[in-house]
């Protein structure tokens, strides 16, 4: 915030930054070759639904838009305990020999641009692309809109609310240089119970 904003006590809602999402398909290949993590083919967008008819009709249009595309994914929405909506884009599982996440990323990007165009950009929290390894470990690559950065989130399977910090650091190190990774680990927001993890 600038001096003027401080004096007047005015803040503008932070708008989302969307473009870095298109670097995810390449990052997926890096994770597969480097760490043996394969994408599940799903992805989700987490946002705060505004009250009122304006948002309801925007959301309905959005679901309709995604459902009409070629090789349409199954799209569902669910509410989490913090009052945020998770919109899950469920594509067919990717072929490990030919991992292609570009379709998924286009869908995620479409969700975000639609919400932003209707003035709901400030309500976007994060996007999540889950990866899984052969031994059952799971890690989500989370994109924070307001910062425009990515971070890994790896809950320990069946371990309650515990994070697999080593795996997270490995993922961060593998992707540094390829994606804008969040350097401030205090911003690595835990998203327990996120779809796909």
């Amino acid at each position, binding site marked *: *915030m600038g001096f003027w*904003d*401080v*004096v*007047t*006590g*005015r*803040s*503008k*809602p*932070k*708008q989302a930054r969307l473009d870095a999402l298109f670097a995810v398909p390449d990052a997926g290949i890096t994770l597969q070759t480097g760490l043996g993590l394969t994408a599940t083919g799903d992805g989700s967008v987490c946002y*705060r*639904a*505004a*009250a*009122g*008819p*304006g*948002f309801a*009709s925007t959301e309905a249009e959005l679901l309709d838009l995604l459902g009409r595309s070629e090789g349409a994914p199954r799209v569902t929405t669910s509410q989490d*305990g*913090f*009052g*945020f909506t998770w919109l899950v884009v469920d594509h067919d599982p990717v072929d490990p020999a030919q991992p292609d996440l570009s379709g998924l990323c286009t869908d995620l990007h479409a969700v975000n641009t639609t919400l*932003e*165009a*209707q*003035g*709901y*950009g*400030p*309500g*976007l*929290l*994060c996007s999540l692309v889950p990866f899984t390894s052969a031994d059952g470990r799971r890690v989500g690559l989370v994109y*924070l809109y*307001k*910062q425009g950065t990515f971070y890994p989130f790896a809950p320990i399977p069946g371990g309650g*609310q515990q994070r697999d910090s080593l795996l997270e650091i490995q993922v961060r190190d593998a992707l540094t240089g390829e994606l804008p990774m969040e350097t401030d680990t*205090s*911003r690595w*927001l*835990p998203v327990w119970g996120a779809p796909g993890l």
Partner: protein
Amino acid sequence: MARTRFIGDSGLTVRMTTVMFLLGALFVALIAVLMYVFPPQYAPIIGVIGLGIAWFQWWTSDSVAMRAMRAREVTPEEAPELHGMIDRLCAMADMPKPRVGVADTAMPNAFATGRSPKRSVVVVTTGILGRLTAEELEGVLAHELSHVAHRDVLVMTVASSAGIVASMLTRGAQFGALGGRRNNGGAAAMLVMLVVSLVVYAVSFVLLRLLSRYRELSADRAGAHLTMRPRALASALQKIAGGMDQVPQRDLRASQSLNAFFIAPAVRGLSLRTLTSTHPTLEQRLEQLARIDAELGRQY
């Protein structure tokens, strides 16, 4: 160009600026009068002491307020729900996460303080945790985080500096009058100074309250846009305002000094309520939230 649902409010900006300007003008007038009345070597010392106190209050505001409310900091393990909520709000607002405290008192309230967004603390009472739903609590937290983002502690400290200096001088003048210096010129100068500093203090008091009320409305507005749920904040305010009356009188007076940072004032003004209250009335706040609700729900 993406649409925005955040409508500007030029009237509010004009009023805020006028208040800040008038406060600054007052301060200048005070210093000018001092320079005229006092021997030149005293004036800077008095000013520096007063501002030093204001600076110290601001610098230590987080720890002093925590101690005054007997609040203790809670870790994410102790209060995962509360931390999760604040984590998400901070990620949406792109601001550093403040520390989180809980005060063990039945009075339903919340406040935020600290010298900068990087070093601030948000405190909720156990009373508010028990009384509000998760959605309402989130609205209250968003309001408090807006205070942090707007640097309200800093602005209020700067704005109140004139009043602090003036009130110190008033006291100094009283002690001076009680002391032995009885020559005519000194007594007249004391009297002039006493009157001037009292007037300065009175005017800055009213302006400060005005500024405080507008900043509360600003925080309501930014908080409602952050959560996108003005209704939740509205119902929280109604619950808290209702709950304030049920609290024993002794608790209310004990927390009087912290009033400016609370979400709802713990002390009711008896007379001149509209002029001297640190918070806008519930009706004003609900009206603004109703407008935001309509803006957010509008179909294009």
